[in-house]
């Protein structure tokens, strides 16, 4: 084991490598959730021009659906990982058809306010039904335990979260940037009227895109259930940070959302090691700097 020390002017603290790696891991875990959630936000914003403030509530619903599927239908974690995104995604589709579709031509503010209001209603309903103390969700049997890597102990479930999040993020990136379907999505983001005039049903594509973005949030919610408590406010706490991540990465950039999500998770983790008193604010400090230097975000394409 060795120790790492930071410069004198920052306090001169020395940290054992074990602590460093475990914070790095926590950073990657948080980054996995930041990436999945900001990816969903970026996909939705790119296509719908809506800043989806319900994203945290939809993430929370994913965790709750997993909990309810287990309690009432006996469907385990793996089934929840498939069905919760489908169920919550379908709720998203209904929400788009009922409310969001009327807002596309209006200012961003309307979509933001509507989705924010919907989030408050959803969270209130869940608090009313389940209380706010949080419910436990059992980690799946196959992913308990962990690996001793020599320099650190790696819990299996955390390794799974990182791998699953990376896979889903890169898969989404591939679909959008490298496939025929993705070329429709990108083209419709630029000029929906023309893509429509080529014979593509753009409104249906928009609806399904929203459903997909929401499903990503629900997927993250299911993965979060065994780590964090399943509670009505779990999304509201996380989404503030995720919006900072999205602002830093740049709205509407797919790879930007993924890279910034993981990157900021790691930066936050490292800050916890070296400058613990800054760890809760570091992301917002970075956001402020990015907003000053590059208002469109690090990967932002549009101005």
């Amino acid at each position, binding site marked *: 084991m060795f120790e790492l020390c930071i410069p004198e002017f920052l306090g001169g603290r020395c940290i054992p490598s074990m602590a460093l790696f475990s914070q790095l891991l926590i950073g990657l875990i948080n980054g996995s959730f930041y990436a999945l959630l900001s990816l969903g936000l970026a996909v939705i914003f790119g296509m719908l021009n809506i800043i989806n403030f319900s994203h945290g509530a939809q993430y929370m619903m994913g965790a709750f659906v997993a909990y309810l599927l287990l309690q009432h239908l006996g469907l385990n974690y793996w089934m929840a990982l498939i069905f919760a995104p489908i169920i919550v995604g379908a709720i998203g589709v209904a929400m788009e058809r009922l409310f969001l579709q009327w807002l596309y031509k209006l200012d961003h503010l309307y979509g933001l306010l509507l989705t924010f209001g919907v989030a408050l209603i959803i969270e209130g309903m869940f608090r009313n039904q389940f209380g706010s103390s949080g419910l436990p969700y059992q980690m799946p049997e196959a992913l308990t335990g962990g690996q001793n890597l020599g320099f650190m102990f790696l819990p299996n479930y955390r390794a799974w979260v990182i791998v699953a999040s990376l896979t889903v993020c890169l898969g989404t990136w591939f679909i959008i940037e490298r496939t*025929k379907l993705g*070329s*429709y999505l*990108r*083209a419709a*983001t*630029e*000029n929906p*009227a*023309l*893509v*429509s*005039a*080529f*014979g*593509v*049903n*753009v409104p249906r594509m928009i609806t399904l895109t929203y459903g997909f973005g929401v499903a990503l949030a629900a997927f993250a919610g299911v993965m979060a259930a065994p780590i964090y408590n399943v509670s009505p406010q779990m999304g509201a706490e996380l989404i503030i940070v995720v919006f900072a991540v999205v602002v830093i990465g740049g709205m509407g950039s797919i790879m930007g959302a993924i890279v910034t999500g993981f990157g900021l998770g790691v930066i936050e983790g490292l800050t916890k090691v070296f400058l613990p008193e800054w760890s809760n604010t570091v992301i917002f400090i970075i956001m402020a700097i990015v907003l000053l230097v590059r208002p469109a975000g690090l990967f932002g394409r549009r101005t």
Partner: protein
Amino acid sequence: MLDTRTPLLDVSGLEAWYGESHILHGVNFNVHEGEVVTLLGRNGAGKTTTLKSIMGMVGRRSGAVRFEGRDLIGTPSNEIARAGIAFCPEERGIFASLTVEENLMLPPQVRSGGLSLERIFELFPNLKERLGSSQGTKLSGGEQQMLAIARILRTGARLLLLDEPTEGLAPVIIQQIGKTIRTLKQQGFTILLVEQNFRFASTVADRYYVMEHGRVVESFVTAELDAKLETLHEYLGV
């Protein structure tokens, strides 16, 4: 010229609005199978709006747009395309976030009988070399125009709506586009062209309609062109 066949495209009493502004005030014209018909007129006469109204791309429209006898006035844009009409917009509509190849392959096939990629590259040899190009909008203006025309030839659409395909292009490129339009006509495509450049139009078109203030005010065939020159100059202000 009296043509008694049912027209491929028959537009009658077409009115269109953008928000509150009433742009088209009852446009009447038709296009027969295999013809190249040109809409002439000054800026703001309603030519582009006419094409967009046929495609269902304006806010509100009324009247009748019959294609192969079927009225498409209440049909959404994507289904009009599926009926077999293809649109090449004035601003060309090449997508910046798509590669050249993705741009070319973007419009879905709506019918059988579209041109194969080989035939398209025979018409536009330049495009083949630029296929690997990363961004559609990195092409030159002329190449973008070729790409915008090429991609709608794949779809199997029988009627092509071309909005000012020569705008802002060098004379050599304009000639090439003229040649392409004549080739397409020989291959049985029907083309409705919007042009300000009536000299160019006269090298490709069979018939002409002149638009002013959202109406068709004059129509004639190529043989009458010389006799109509004076009136035309008045309408077009050239």
